[in-house]
């Protein structure tokens, strides 16, 4: 029969030597990143887990990195693609610094550069399998944006990736306001991260919170959130719904 022959046209549509060179699925992945604007700049949080499918394989993955003088990049999704993006950005910042002319790429410029990269890779059917959060401050202007693996990008006062969109954003929509203090911002982020810890299977209880202001970047040392498992509903989860776990 002609089953083998019918494979040929599909491959050629997708490019030469197609399948071996396109990203088809991610392998080692990070879960949500959550970020918000506060009075002095941006706060961003992410846990340090790198999952290999359903195994919580790596537990010290730094998923938030500073970029240049003015930006922070947080990533969820394929960790190796995040490392590749960091290499691109390293080169970008290097060339920017080599001009040595007092100009520097701010968070808005980096965000747009990343959007172009992500979208162009998507168009070649070889995406960088990440959802990125880019935040920063330049000349007093705060900036917070996100780019997805298909190139969807936008800015907002608070953003999140993955599960964070479903669990953290609703909390932020209720409780975020302009000019949060640093303590309030951290408290709000921790609230979001705690919910994610309870409800996201790929979350681990080891996170970093990063802060960027006009003065510079700080990424905290890893720490854990206090959790409470003695809710009565956890004690007998099947009470209201037989067969659940």
């Amino acid at each position: 029969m002609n089953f083998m022959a019918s494979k040929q046209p599909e491959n050629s549509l997708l490019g030469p030597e197609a399948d071996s060179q396109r990203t088809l699925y991610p392998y080692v992945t990070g879960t949500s990143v959550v970020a918000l604007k506060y009075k002095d700049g941006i706060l961003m949080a992410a846990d340090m887990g790198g999952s290999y499918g359903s195994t919580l394989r790596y537990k010290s993955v730094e998923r938030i990195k500073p970029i240049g003088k003015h930006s922070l990049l947080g990533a969820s999704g394929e960790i190796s693609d995040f490392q590749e993006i960091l290499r691109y950005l390293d080169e970008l910042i290097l060339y920017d610094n080599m001009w040595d002319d007092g100009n520097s790429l701010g968070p808005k410029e980096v965000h747009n550069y990343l959007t172009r990269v992500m979208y162009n890779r998507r168009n070649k059917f070889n995406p960088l399998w990440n959802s990125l959060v880019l935040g920063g401050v330049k000349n007093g202007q705060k900036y917070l944006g996100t780019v997805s693996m298909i190139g969807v990008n936008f800015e907002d006062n608070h953003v999140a990736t993955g599960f964070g969109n479903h669990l953290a954003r609703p909390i932020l929509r209720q409780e975020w306001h302009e000019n949060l203090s640093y303590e309030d911002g951290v408290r709000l982020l921790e609230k979001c991260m705690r919910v994610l810890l309870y409800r996201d299977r790929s979350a681990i209880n080891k996170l970093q919170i990063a802060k960027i202001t006009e003065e510079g970047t700080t990424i905290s040392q890893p720490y854990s959130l206090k959790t409470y498992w003695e809710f009565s509903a956890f004690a007998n989860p099947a009470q209201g719904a037989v067969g659940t776990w």
Partner: protein
Amino acid sequence: MFRNQYDTDVTTWSPAGRLFQVEYAMEAVKQGSAAIGLRSKTHVVLGCVNKANSELSSHQKKIFKVDDHIGVAIAGLTADGRVLSRYMRNECINYNFTYESPLPVGRLVVQLADKAQVCTQRSWKRPYGVGLLVAGLDESGAHLYYNCPSGNYFEYQAFAIGSRSQAAKTYLERRFENFTDSSRDDLVKDAITAIRETLQGETLKSSICTIAVVGVGEPFHILDQGTVQQIIDTFEIAAEQEGPAAEPDAATGQDTAVEQGAAADQGGSTDEGVAPMDI
């Protein structure tokens, strides 16, 4: 400069360490009609003399908008200038597309200079025969640069290029210390006055000069003829009454700007450090 055996190729050095073809290219700039630029902390003004070939023809375009925050005035081979303006516009658009941010003037100027340098080091090319006065705004303020056919570039507070530009330069040299804090309108008036200097007696009309402005909150644009003529009229009236611009004079009382001009003239003419050059 006279013809010699080292001036055929741009890739031939003279024994004195000169590249004559590059120097000849700079001569082409000196033959073009004048262009001037001056800047304050927040604005940059470009002006040029537009001579039409005949009354029947239109004049050549010598000022180009490169982006909302950058414009350029050229002197020399205008065709070369047009090509370089297109290159500059392209660079600005590409940068804006990738970074959604305006290209810093300083970087554009360096790219332009590097492009010009290439033509001084290839046997199959010739240097661009045009000098460019690049006016632009970026994060660090207002800038005015001059790009040479040699591939050099310099930043200026005020500058003039092209034929009879020395007269304008002399005028600008007397005044430049005041430019940083000048208002936009005073800057435009100084630009028009500088252009008038290059005309050496010929009547200044808005049909033979073009003025363009870029500043904080003001994208680069060329002033329309009506506006320019109005400004010319305000000081042509005063000029008739007070004589050549260098003479100190009692204020005519008509125009505060004219009074400012007269006051500045007094300051300029009593400055004994700078002598007007005769060339």
